[in-house]
């Protein structure tokens, strides 16, 4: 099971999260929708990272992120019928390990990859990707494969 990304995609996501520090950065991961998207351990090819503003209110952006559903709906509309879709999300944990929090779990969608980037003192320290189980009770870590 893996999340396959290019170095250029990693650079975009990491730069977004470093720039957002000490707040959380976030964005969409876009790519072809796999046939077995809902299978635990499927492989996901991401061909685009699209940074988005953290839509959470100013009070808690250091430990919360929100992607505006209107923006998500617009991007899904753009991709409609192309075989590509929003297949995952990235966000940062400033000064906190890249493990999903209970809140991450409560809010997570199935199938998708949740790529969490740990930022320490403004720099990436670690990054891990997770897929939620269908029953919504846990996340399973997946390998991040850097290509190109």
């Amino acid at each position: 099971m893996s999340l396959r990304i290019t170095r250029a995609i990693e650079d975009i996501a990491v730069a977004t999260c470093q720039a957002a520090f000490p707040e959380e950065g976030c964005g969409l991961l876009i790519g072809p929708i796999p046939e077995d998207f809902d299978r635990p351990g499927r492989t996901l090819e991401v061909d685009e990272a699209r940074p988005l503003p953290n839509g959470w209110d100013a009070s808690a952006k250091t430990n919360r992120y929100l992607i505006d559903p209107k923006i998500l709906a617009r991007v899904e509309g753009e991709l409609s019928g192309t075989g590509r879709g929003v297949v995952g999300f990235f966000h940062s944990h400033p000064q906190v390990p890249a493990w999903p929090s209970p809140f991450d779990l409560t809010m997570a969608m199935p199938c998708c990859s949740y790529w969490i980037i740990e930022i320490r003192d403004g720099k990436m320290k670690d990054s891990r990707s997770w897929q939620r189980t269908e029953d919504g009770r846990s996340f399973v870590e997946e390998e991040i494969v850097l290509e190109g």
Partner: protein
Amino acid sequence: MSIEIRLPTALRAFADKQERISVEAKTVGEALDQLFSKHDRLRQQLMSADGKLRSFVNVYVNDDDARDKQGLATIVKEGDTILIVPAIAGGSATAEAELTKAELARYDRHLIMPEVGPEGQKKLKNASVLCVGAGGLGSPLALYLAAAGVGRIGIVDFDTVDESNLQRQIIHDTQSVGTSKLVSAKKRLLALNPFISVETHEMRLTSANAVELFSKYDVIADGTDNFATRYLVNDACVLTGKPNAYGSIFRFEGQLAVFGLKDGPCYRCLYPEPPPPGLVPSCSEAGVLGVLPGVIGTMQAIEALKLILGIGRPLSGRLMLYDALEQSWRTLKVKKNPACPVCSEHPTITAPIDYEAFCGLKEKTVTIPEISVNDLKKKLDAKENFVLLDVREPHEYEIAKITGSTLIPLGKLPERFTEVDKSAKVIVHCKMGGRSAKAVQFLIEKGYDATNVTGGINAWSESIDPSVPQY
């Protein structure tokens, strides 16, 4: 009605990989029911066990959020599109944020003390304190909490900075006079420490909002200046299980305590009832030494830090009294009241009450006895024994008067009311009945038997004696 439902990428796997699904429905709820009846795995993803849409599921009808319309009851018509869009959110809230290098440098004098250390400083960073009021006590309190590195400081206030505040409210400055206290305080706190977050709540703390607000913070610090809010803060702290680092000031004296700890007393254990309204003047009436809130507010900050760090002995079960003129501190023991209406095992108050009424601050509604001009005429004709009091101004009296009346203008009544025979029935009139109603209320409070003439001399002119001019 044929309605199209569109699914986001993440959910299509649960609907045979379809992006668009047509259903026949009249409302959003019907459409979703149909969708779920065909695709049960989708229902499990989007609906909670009690049959409600999960909180992160947004439903749009064309471009409008269904919640802004009638929710699931929103009517849909032929050709409408229903979009299901998840709110993608998350974050690291539950894991404790580590200290950054810049923070390690800033808090060095804390870190080298074993009682605080990196672990304690991390506790401060991940803690939250709500300051009730950005005034005399709130100023040093919030400043020291910010400097000490309390990660989230909330302030609730609704006032603007007045020049007369600056003698003691050192979080504000001359430039901020006339602007919001919250804006001024937040600016100052973030200038002092950019590593913290400051949440401002511009509102009057009320029974309706206190419990919800308090539940978002670890410690509440009461820096209010009135009894109604003080009882509200106390009760809401007990109800939410939050400790209250309490302080209060008056002229040259201050009080300090921690209320609401599990085994400790609350403010009501100490003072079950507020003093009668008006008995204890406020700082704006009686004055306060400018430095005094600096002493007490700073002590509140110390108690708040101790509570967060879990060090020392909290000032619970004790009330400290400070006298600036004597430069003395006294500590009184305060016991938990086993019959306390809020914090005992069998409380009678289980939700915030009406504190204005509890503290006697609501204007009492007094029914003003009224008499019509016709009945007044009958009494005059029958030569009944009463005083007819006119509370208009002398120049009005020149224009028109009812024969036999006594003139005492309303403004002069408080000093001249004793001229009126207390044993007699008093009937009061003015031009239209407004001023005389106030006079009647005043006289009743002074023990008189007073009645108001409905409609005043104008009604008299209208119905009884047209020769009296109307003006």
